[in-house]
């Protein structure tokens, strides 16, 4: 009874929190509420017997995404707008826009569509909500019992944990493409060249002894946790994604504390690290064609070993990708520092 009440409150809290995220005036506060939303979502997944994705959501969905948002909001605040578009505008218009725009230090946003648009929108939105609500309570029974099939074939997958088996064996093609998407995202973000832009790079704090001490203390712990999650993925919740998320968060911490400098030498090590997950996955996936004749169809005898090798490299790439997405700036050619190799050594 109590657990049912808890589920009801949690289920009710999520849409309300989403509403608050979108209506709070202060953007910083909105991002903090967003992080709280992510943690509550993770909690609801833990309630729904999905510890794998609860772990990933807490680390990536709430933690890293929240850090990304905070970083961006920080980049949009307290800086004068470039005057490129104002040359032909009257001073009055510019001043009024200034008043609407956020003032330094307080990223306020309350620009919305006019009231009649909002009023007219409520009808179709409510209708959509009712239709979707009716659809989810009257779901038909699934035609194929995938849960049964997955558990029947778990024996042949080489690992003992259902989610890992699906990710790296039954549906490994999806995971391969997903790693490709990650690589593509870094390339896309780098091509925007935010390194030149003022405030485009993650803010670095220098000489904060408490932060340095904390990060030095956390680094070995997080590496152990990441390694454990990777190893545990074969038979219980965990795996490359969760391990990559933890190590990626470590990368962000190291960059933020200034212990590892982001414009990493000529970046060739970083580039290789980012691509190695996809390359190894694709390489093994095509190499097994020689043995079995099918893409990503592992020979039964060596399945476990191949999955572990793939997961190991996936972890490195996922961790580096998440950290690189946070730093946003591509590595510079002209600087020759060695810090990067340290970071890579730690994460692999």
């Amino acid at each position, binding site marked *: 009874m109590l657990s049912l009440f808890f589920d*009801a409150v*949690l289920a009710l809290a999520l849409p309300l929190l*989403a*509403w608050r*995220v*979108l209506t709070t005036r202060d*953007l910083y506060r*909105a991002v903090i509420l*967003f992080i709280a*939303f992510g943690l509550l979502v993770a909690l*609801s997944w833990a*309630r*729904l017997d*999905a510890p*794998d*994705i609860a772990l*990933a*959501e807490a680390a990536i*969905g709430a933690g890293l*995404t929240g850090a990304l*948002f905070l*970083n961006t909001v920080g*980049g949009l605040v307290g800086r004068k707008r*470039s005057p490129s*578009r*104002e040359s032909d505008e009257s001073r009055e*218009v510019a001043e*009024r*826009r200034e008043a*609407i725009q956020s003032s330094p230090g307080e990223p306020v*946003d309350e*620009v*919305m*569509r006019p009231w009649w*648009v909002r009023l007219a*929108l409520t009808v179709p*939105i409510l209708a*959509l*909500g009712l239709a*979707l609500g009716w659809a*989810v309570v009257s*779901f038909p029974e699934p035609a194929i019992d*995938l*849960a*049964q099939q997955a558990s029947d074939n778990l024996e042949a997958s080489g690992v003992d944990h*259902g*989610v890992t*088996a*699906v*990710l790296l064996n*039954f549906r490994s093609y*999806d*995971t391969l493409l*997903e790693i490709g*998407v*990650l690589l593509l995202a870094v390339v896309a*973000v780098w091509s925007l060249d*935010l390194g030149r*832009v003022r405030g*485009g790079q993650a803010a670095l704090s220098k000489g904060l002894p408490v932060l340095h001490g904390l990060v030095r203390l956390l680094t070995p712990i997080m590496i152990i946790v990441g390694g454990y999650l990777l190893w545990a993925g074969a038979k219980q919740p965990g795996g490359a994604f969760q391990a990559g998320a933890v190590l990626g968060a470590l990368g962000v911490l190291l960059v933020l504390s200034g212990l590892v400098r982001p414009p990493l030498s000529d970046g060739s090590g970083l580039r290789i690290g980012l691509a190695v997950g996809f390359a190894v996955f694709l390489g093994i996936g095509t190499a097994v064609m020689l043995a079995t004749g099918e893409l990503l169809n592992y020979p039964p005898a060596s399945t476990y070993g191949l999955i572990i090798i793939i997961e190991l490299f996936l972890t490195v790439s996922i961790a580096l990708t998440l950290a690189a997405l946070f730093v946003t700036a591509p590595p510079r050619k002209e600087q020759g520092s060695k810090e990067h190799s340290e970071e890579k050594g730690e994460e692999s």
Partner: protein
Amino acid sequence: MSPVTFYLLSSVGIFVVCLYGLIVHAHLIRKILALNMMGSAVFLLLTGVARRGELTDPVPHAMVLTGIVVAVSATAFALAVARRLYEECGRAYLPEEDPEDLSEEREG
């Protein structure tokens, strides 16, 4: 009503609220927040669906796990584009949703 139904309905609620927010708000950060939470709503729906049978279905779980990682990279890209736009134009709004046009409409 089983607890799973609560979560299924909750995911619909989040989705609808965020869709409304996505259309109504002009600021790009707000839009990206709304899009990201819409993704979370879909993930919540998938997780709820996985829980309906007597066995927990690992296939939707794997899809959501993949989805979370893709969502964070898409969000990072969207935020980078928004920041670049801010640098180029001095605003975090789309051209057709300029705050001064909207405020004129509201007044007039």
